[in-house]
């Protein structure tokens, strides 16, 4: 019974590797994008702040699958011929970026205004205040939600299979359609995702506890 799973394991593991690559790219680039936007969202330009707010609002209100479809159809429509991974990857990066931007903005705004007043009173300018006072503290606050965000992003790579990108879930469906051993294969796949995600989950929770203790 478990034989089906074992014989197909190499294929599934290759799928898992693809998932990991996708996840790595999306999480790193998405978090970088979001952090930059989150910092800009606390800046002085009202237009920039408004634009980022709209971006966050729209992307947080629609399903990631829709954004992936958008990526899939938008690139050719604009004249670019990219493979499914790039299309799906860029879509996810933009999506993760929106959530990250909200987390980062929130963390920056949660630094006590009294400290910013104190830093200004010493004659510090915005750059120094951001670097020495705001970001060290905001980073600490932002890490647990960012880790949770990363966890969600990793799980979302599975949805790329719906749009036609080959990764672990796509591979699983291929095998199930061939062998009809749905339970074994999907449970096995769940186990693989669990192995990837659970450590991230634990990391996020460990960091949360550390934060509570230090306050």
């Amino acid at each position, binding site marked *: 019974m478990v034989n089906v799973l074992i014989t197909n394991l190499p294929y599934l593991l290759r799928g898992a590797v693809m998932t990991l690559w996708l996840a790595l790219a999306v999480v790193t680039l998405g978090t970088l994008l979001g952090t930059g936007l989150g910092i800009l969202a606390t800046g002085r330009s009202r237009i920039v702040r408004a634009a980022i707010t709209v971006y966050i609002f729209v992307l947080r*209100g*629609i*399903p990631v699958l*829709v954004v992936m479809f958008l990526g899939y159809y938008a690139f050719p*429509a604009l004249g670019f011929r990219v493979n499914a991974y790039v299309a799906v990857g860029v879509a996810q990066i933009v999506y993760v970026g929106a959530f990250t931007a909200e987390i980062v903005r929130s963390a920056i705004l949660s630094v006590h205004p009294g400290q910013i007043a104190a830093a200004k009173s010493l004659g510090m300018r915005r750059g120094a205040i951001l670097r020495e006072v705001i970001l060290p503290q905001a980073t600490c606050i932002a890490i647990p939600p960012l880790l949770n965000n990363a966890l969600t992003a990793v799980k979302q790579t599975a949805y790329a299979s719906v749009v036609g990108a080959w990764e672990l879930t796509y591979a699983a469906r291929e095998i199930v359609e061939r062998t009809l051993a*749905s*339970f074994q294969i999907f449970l096995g796949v769940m186990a693989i995702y669990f192995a990837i995600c*659970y450590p991230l989950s634990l990391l996020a929770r460990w960091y949360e506890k550390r934060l509570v203790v230090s306050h």
Partner: protein
Amino acid sequence: MSEYLAQTAVLLASLWPKLVAGFVLTVEIAAAAAPLALVFGLVLLAPRMDARAFVSGPTVAFIELMRNTPLLVQIYLIYFGLPVLGFYPSEFTCGVAGIALQHGAFLVETYRGAIESVSTRQWDAARAIGMGRFTAFRHVILPQALMKILGPLGNQLIVLAKDTSLVSAIGVMELTMTGKLAIERSAASAEVFVAIALFYLAMTTAIGGAVRLLEYRVAERT
């Protein structure tokens, strides 16, 4: 420009009935899954907080499994797996079940967080005036936990509403699937996307607004 708008209007008008039908189905999935998830979360709450390891252990294991695997795979498991056991539920049912299971598991943690975040001093105060543990829970802890839960609950519901789009993967003609087909058949992908996005935004904004209104009302009375 007006030529473009006219063409778009005609296109959207022809697609409108289908899009609305898809949206209605999306709402139906969410409306079916949400109460199930809320109840399922409550059902799991007691075993989760039980002091005995053989009760809380398996519950935690189940919750962790739900939280660390993609919803899509869970839906596939149900959809492709149940026929093997002899059950043939509809795609709709599979989707609703999958969503309810995963979100129920997430909700347990939300419930737990809210209850534990009500300060222990409230327990002290209640017991100090002579309330028993159950009475204290019912009249002092629970109302406060309910207030703290509204925010996270609202967010969870918004995620649930968006997760309905996954059910398109098993062929349900909800909004995302309808949109996808419409795009494949027509040439106006951008316009259809905007339409779909607006539908979803309407739904998620409505949920967000309703929750905020509820929070406001509850806060007024406390």
